[in-house]
């Protein structure tokens, strides 16, 4: 009896392993030729990023609704498989494998953080699935962590900071203080900003870094006041950014400043929390909701109809990810991930952010970046686009560490 149980267990284990191998290599599942094209979405559904995860899915849902109503992509229906993760790379990887091997997904979207993308990129070729990154901004994802199966739809951190740097000369203020998070992104942004400030003839009077999760910015703000700065470049995220803005307001720091320029500090989801304090603040903007092209107008109308509010950068960038995938399938005339990957190389198409090109060398989508000013729109706040920087200004040359 005992021997039978062991034999059955071994057979079951071998069967599962073989089934998993078969799915990984074929990965067609139910989505073979003629069936629906399956896209797995793996957003975080818990933790601080849960709201962004929900909004990422909303962007994909609107894109899929519009595509299916128009007769599908390359004549085939798109089906979304919504999974969930806690934004831990190990969890995301496990869920991605499950989506590909068990659910038959060939494409992956709505993965949130850069570490998750780094872990996923390393496994994509083995899984035989394509990933469309609309949220992780780390430059390494198009550098040493790039993959022929990964597409970087969102701007990288370098593109964002280069967009700000190119507009710096237009901003009021000659004596700048840098207030940044004591983290790689904070130091990287500060370095780039200093170089741009020097080029624009601006003086840096103070440079200081606060540890992540700083709750009291009092001593930092006092130093900015004492420095005689008339402008601040601030790189503080999430709760740190809210605390900095709130405390700067309490210290009347704004009275001394002609410009507050944030880097990923203020964004639409924080407008209600930050309130009128941030009116007049400048920040980098990845997506212009007022973008004047028919693709964008169709998206904004459809998204507002579906979800009851206008889109911001998270759903918009995920919608762009879907547009990129659909353009690749149409170009390839096939939903085979390898064919789609090849078809997307150097492909240009019209999107919600205007004409974009997928750079073959690192799969970065070349698109404009913007400088926005927070302005009042009735009772609410919105970004008013002040200038845009084209990809030839913002996008660094492909990293030699990336081999496709």
């Amino acid at each position, binding site marked *: 009896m005992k021997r039978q149980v062991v034999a059955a267990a071994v057979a079951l284990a071998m069967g599962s392993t073989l089934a998993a191998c078969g799915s990984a290599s074929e990965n067609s599942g139910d989505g073979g030729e003629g069936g629906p094209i399956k896209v797995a979405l793996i957003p975080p559904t818990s*933790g601080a990023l849960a*709201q962004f995860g929900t909004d990422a899915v909303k962007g994909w849902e609107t894109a899929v609704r519009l595509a299916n109503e128009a007769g599908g992509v390359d004549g085939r229906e798109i089906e979304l498989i919504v999974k969930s993760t806690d934004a831990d790379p190990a969890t995301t990887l496990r869920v991605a494998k499950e989506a590909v091997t068990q659910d038959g997904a060939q494409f992956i979207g709505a993965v949130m953080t850069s570490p998750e993308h780094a872990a996923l990129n390393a496994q994509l070729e083995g899984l035989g699935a394509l990933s469309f990154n609309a949220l992780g901004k780390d430059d390494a994802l198009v550098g040493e962590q790039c993959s022929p199966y990964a597409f970087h739809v969102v701007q990288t951190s370098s593109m964002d900071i280069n967009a700000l740097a190119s507009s710096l000369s237009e901003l009021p203020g000659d004596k700048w203080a840098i207030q940044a998070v004591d983290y790689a992104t904070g130091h990287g942004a500060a370095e780039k900003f200093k170089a741009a400030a020097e080029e624009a003839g601006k003086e840096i009077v103070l440079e200081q870094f606060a540890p992540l*999760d700083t709750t*009291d910015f*009092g*001593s930092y703000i006092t130093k900015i006041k004492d420095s005689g700065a008339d402008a601040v470049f601030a790189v503080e995220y999430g709760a740190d950014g*809210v605390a900095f803005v709130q405390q700067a307001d*309490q210290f009347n720091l704004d009275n001394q400043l002609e410009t507050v320029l944030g880097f990923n500090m203020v964004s639409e989801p924080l407008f209600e929390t930050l309130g009128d304090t941030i009116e007049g603040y400048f920040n980098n903007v990845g997506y212009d909701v007022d973008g004047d092209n028919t693709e964008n107008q169709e998206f904004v109308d459809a998204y507002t109809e579906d979800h009851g509010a206008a889109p911001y950068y998270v759903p918009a960038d995920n919608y762009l990810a879907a547009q990129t995938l659909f353009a690749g399938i149409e170009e390839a005339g096939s939903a085979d991930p390898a064919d789609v990957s090849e078809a997307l190389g150097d492909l240009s198409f019209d999107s919600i952010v205007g004409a974009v090109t997928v750079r073959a060398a690192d799969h970065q989508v070349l698109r404009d970046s913007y400088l926005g000013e927070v302005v009042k729109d009735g009772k609410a706040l919105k970004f008013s686009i002040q200038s845009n920087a084209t990809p030839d200004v913002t996008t660094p040359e492909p990293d030699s560490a990336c081999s496709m």
Partner: protein
Amino acid sequence: MNAAQVLNGVALGSLLMVLSSGLAMIYGLRGVANFAHGALYMSGAYIAYTVSDRFNFWLAILLVPLALAVIGVVLELVFFRPLQHRSHIELGLITFGLALMAERIVVLIWGERTLRVTPPEILQGTTTLLGVEYPTYRLSIIVIALALAAALVLWLRGSRVGLHIRAASQDIETAGIMGVNVDRVSLIVVSLGCALAGLAGTLAAPYIALDPGMGNAFLITVLIVVVVGGIGSIGGAMVAGMGLGVIQTVSTVWSPSFAVVVPYLALTIVLLWRPTGLAGKRVS
């Protein structure tokens, strides 16, 4: 170093003072390292957000400590009193579990996005003091915290209940034998300790940004304050809280990276130099 930076240190110290005195009271009497104290502080801040959003901030200052005092009564009657003969580690673990639950409940009610509380209009803007322009709200925190500290010390030293609390904190069994109703004293101390956490949360709400992790960020610092002050000593915790706030702010001015390790450095030095903490066995 200018006067504004000294005031920054005193403001942070004031907040630590209110928060750590509640924790020190509970530790002194029950011998429990209440790991839920950070969660109580965080819950206080979130309740203050809702009360000041619907009504006003002044009502929050009154209501939140009362609400937290009720939670303190529940903590005492449901956990601390029935489990008083269990090991301190077990009780500590229970409070740790309660803290995790509180964090999830806060997320379920208020969500995970960062929130902000605006101070009442009269406390907005700046006031000129010692030749510097300083946020009025921070000055009011300093005044409230110092007044509270004075009242607490006077109450502990001058009232019969205060005498009983000091006696029970020195030796709860002997105090019981001498006729002190230690259950009543314990109920007062735990509910008052929780109310102080609620008050600290309310005062902190317009000072810092509200997020569900805000309690954890302060808990470790406050635990260090209590140990440095002298375990169970309310007066010691107040002095240590103020001292650490000032030292940490001053070191932030010179080196923010170094300021992060200041609480741990202070803990190490005090434990080596004076293992019983600054106040030793004195309660108030």
